[in-house]
């Protein structure tokens, strides 16, 4: 992936700031040593001052407001028509702002919550008329089969953890449609920076069950050489970045990758996933702001599943969810029913088209519910009602909903269902058994990849360790190949 990088970024230098440089003039070099604080003027001082003044002409305001009425000099008020004050605007460096003569604040929330885009109802019936992106019978069946595979894989790996065969696991239960439908709407060249609840994207891209199992069991065939805890998959050849445990760090990084694509004018975008909890991290806000400013082709997909471990969204934010935050950063956004595979597919397809062709970021908030526990270290019945979980699990299951739709189209049957589930189960059990048989990583893997080339102190450490193992073999575990 890295090697194939095209080195043409030098060709796209745009000197759009050149003209501005002239008016700013050369900076006073004598201020070098005193410019360590953030308060030095970047824009001419007169503009900077104007930006801090909140409102314009206060001719109808109480007297104590009037003192600032005449301080707009460089940001002058200009009349657009003959209607007088009503059409006056404040001409700011970033654009014009109309005046208002009402002392009114923007409401903390809209009167109605943002709508949620959906194509299929809870029974898998297509709502008419709805606009959506056409999906072929073959693609629909493939999407459904992968959802079944993902569900089965989760069940079996979860059990393997309960049996103590692996240390940790995280399921995607309830979020299968977000996983598979978003993956299906992307191109293979699109780069994915996942969180940890999107293994379905990797599954869709052809990561084999054996590869999943090798990672979870940390054997020597694992692409991460057994260095990360289970479910932290990563595969260069699938354009899927190695998962980070830290929350939301992948968001600004995704903007960086998108910037890289942009520099090389690639016909691809970046897609990054995160949960509702992740939107409270500073990284989320930094990423959205930077994506907007750098016009980066990146799709932010928030899986708003209601719970960040035990923290409900009502304790996470007081906004109307996540979708409304896009506009604050100047980013086009949509709220989607995350349990409706067809809606999810359509939204991501359209988002991808805009991101790539218009070179802009898009924010998608997928409303869903985390049916499983946060991870195997969690018991969610301690903090949320069991009937809430059951309702989402049974009545609103995204996999069942999509099955009903493909069945109603005559593309799926009970027989196909039984075959698909049996086959998935067999394949996954086999992969686990194989993964358990493979040797664990050797001593050498402990020291490689800290740097591109191992420095002398690491070579020394490794040598020392090998000598010690040789001298005291009985004190060392036998399952570490030397």
């Amino acid at each position, binding site marked *: 992936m*890295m090697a194939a*990088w095209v*080195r043409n*970024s*030098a060709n*796209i*230098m*745009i*000197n*759009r*700031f*050149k003209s501005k*440089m002239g008016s*700013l003039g050369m*900076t006073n070099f*004598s201020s*070098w*040593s*005193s*410019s*360590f604080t*953030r308060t*030095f003027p*970047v824009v001419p001082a007169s503009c900077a001052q104007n930006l801090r003044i909140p409102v314009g002409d206060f001719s109808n305001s109480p007297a104590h407001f009037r003192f600032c009425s005449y301080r707009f000099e460089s940001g002058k008020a200009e009349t657009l028509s003959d209607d007088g004050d009503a059409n006056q605007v404040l001409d700011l460096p970033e654009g014009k702002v109309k005046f208002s003569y009402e002392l009114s604040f923007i409401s903390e929330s809209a009167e109605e919550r943002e709508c949620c885009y959906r194509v299929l109802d809870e029974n898998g019936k297509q709502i008419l008329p709805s606009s959506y992106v056409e999906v072929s019978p073959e693609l629909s069946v493939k999407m459904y089969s992968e959802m079944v595979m993902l569900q089965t894989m989760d069940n079996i790996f979860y059990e393997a953890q309960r049996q103590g065969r692996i240390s940790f696991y995280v399921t995607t239960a309830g979020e299968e449609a977000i996983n598979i439908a978003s993956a299906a709407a992307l191109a293979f060249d699109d780069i994915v920076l996942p969180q940890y609840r999107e293994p379905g994207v990797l599954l869709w891209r052809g990561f084999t069950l054996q590869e999943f199992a090798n990672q979870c069991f940390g054997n020597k065939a694992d*692409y*991460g050489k057994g*260095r990360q805890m289970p479910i*932290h998959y*990563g595969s*260069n050849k699938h354009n899927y*970045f*190695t998962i*980070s445990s*830290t929350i939301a*760090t992948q*968001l*600004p*990084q995704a*903007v*960086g*990758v998108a*910037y*890289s694509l942009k*520099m*090389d004018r690639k016909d691809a975008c970046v897609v990054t996933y995160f949960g509702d909890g992740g939107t409270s991290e500073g*990284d989320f*806000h*930094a*990423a959205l*702001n*930077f994506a907007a*400013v*750098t016009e980066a082709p990146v799709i932010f997909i928030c899986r708003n599943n209601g719970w960040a471990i035990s923290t409900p969204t009502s304790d996470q934010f007081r906004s109307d969810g996540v979708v409304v935050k896009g506009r604050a950063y100047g980013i086009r956004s949509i709220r989607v029913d995350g349990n409706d595979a067809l809606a999810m597919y359509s939204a991501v397809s359209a988002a991808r088209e805009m991101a790539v062709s218009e070179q802009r970021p898009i924010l998608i908030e997928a409303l869903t519910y985390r049916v499983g526990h946060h991870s195997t270290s969690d018991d969610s019945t301690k903090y949320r009602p069991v009937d809430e979980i059951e309702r989402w699990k049974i009545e609103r299951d995204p996999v069942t909903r999509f099955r009903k739709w493909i069945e109603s189209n005559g593309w799926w049957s009970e027989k196909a269902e039984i075959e698909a589930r049996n086959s998935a189960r067999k394949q996954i059990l086999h992969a686990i058994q194989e993964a358990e048989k493979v040797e664990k990583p050797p001593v050498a893997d402990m020291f*490689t*990849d*800290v*740097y*591109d080339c191992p*420095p002398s*102190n690491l070579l020394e450490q490794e040598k020392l360790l090998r000598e010690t193992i040789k001298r005291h073999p009985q004190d060392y575990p036998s399952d570490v190949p030397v």
Partner: protein
Amino acid sequence: MLGIIRQKVGAGCSSAMLQRIRPVASVCRSYSSSAKEMTVRDALNSALDEEMSADPKVFLMGEEVGEYQGAYKISKGLLDKYGPDRVLDTPITEAGFTGIGVGAAYYGLKPVVEFMTFNFSMQAIDHIINSAAKSNYMSASQINVPIVFRGPNGAAAGVGAQHSQCYAAWFAAIPGLKVLTPYSSEDARGLLKAAIRDPDPVVFLENELLYGESFPVSAEVLDSSFCLPIGKAKIEREGKDITITAFSKMVGYALQAAEILAKEGISAEVINLRSIRPLDRATINTSVRKTNRLVTVEEGFPQHGVGAEICTSVVEESFGYLDAPVERIAGADVPMPYAANLERLALPQVEDIVRAAKRACYRSVPLAASA
């Protein structure tokens, strides 16, 4: 020399700062016989320019690096030359642009991320440590991170606790990072070029007070192919009685101390560490085995500092060669005070190095007399 002082006066510095500049400026005098001189600022600027010109994947990002030409003018002229796609003025969010830099490095670019000072890098330290330093290992070399984090580190003058901390020991504690600390113009050019060309993440710690200083440079240093090896220290001055290790601005102080010690018959060997991680333990230990005495100097806090690490290395490898306890000179164990008199007390001074060296050579004057 006078030029430096004038420039600082023009910047409206206090007289307290001038007092601090003078001894440093006097170091320059000892070099003035050399033909060609270059400031550290120009050394960094030319290194950036040459590497950007040589490799289109290299780009610079940070606050004020473009139109303002860098808060300290290190990126002067680069926006004009390379355009806004490669000299990127960012919003004021360290965590944001550091994360974006790391992401760009993940996917084929070679970012140079400027922190206005390394104190502000604390707002982005998660990206540097949890992402940049660990990704190559965690991904088993599927993702390498060729990125440089650079900017002024350590104490400037009169800028208080939140602008005056040395982070060398912090970053040097992390496997996966390389940490470089240039002193002279030769260091600045050679190490920055090495950092940009390196496939691993490099933390490049500059010093604000050195930016305006001139150092002699050879034709070799000025050549665009010039590059210094990462992980190699430089013996700035040979000696036989005592070893003094230092990095960044403290190398200048150590050289001044060596000059004073020479007058008293003590021959000090001054090691400019250049690289804090990897640390050139071989050069340090070879020197200590020759001189049998060691003084470590750093501006940072003493606990778990660079001096502590060097001391451990010498105890482990050369204990039998030591003729005196190792002397460690570091900044005071307090946040940096603003008041000039206290600030001076909080930082290592040339006299401190001289006194410690004499103690290690059993030539110390009674403390009461010197106080």
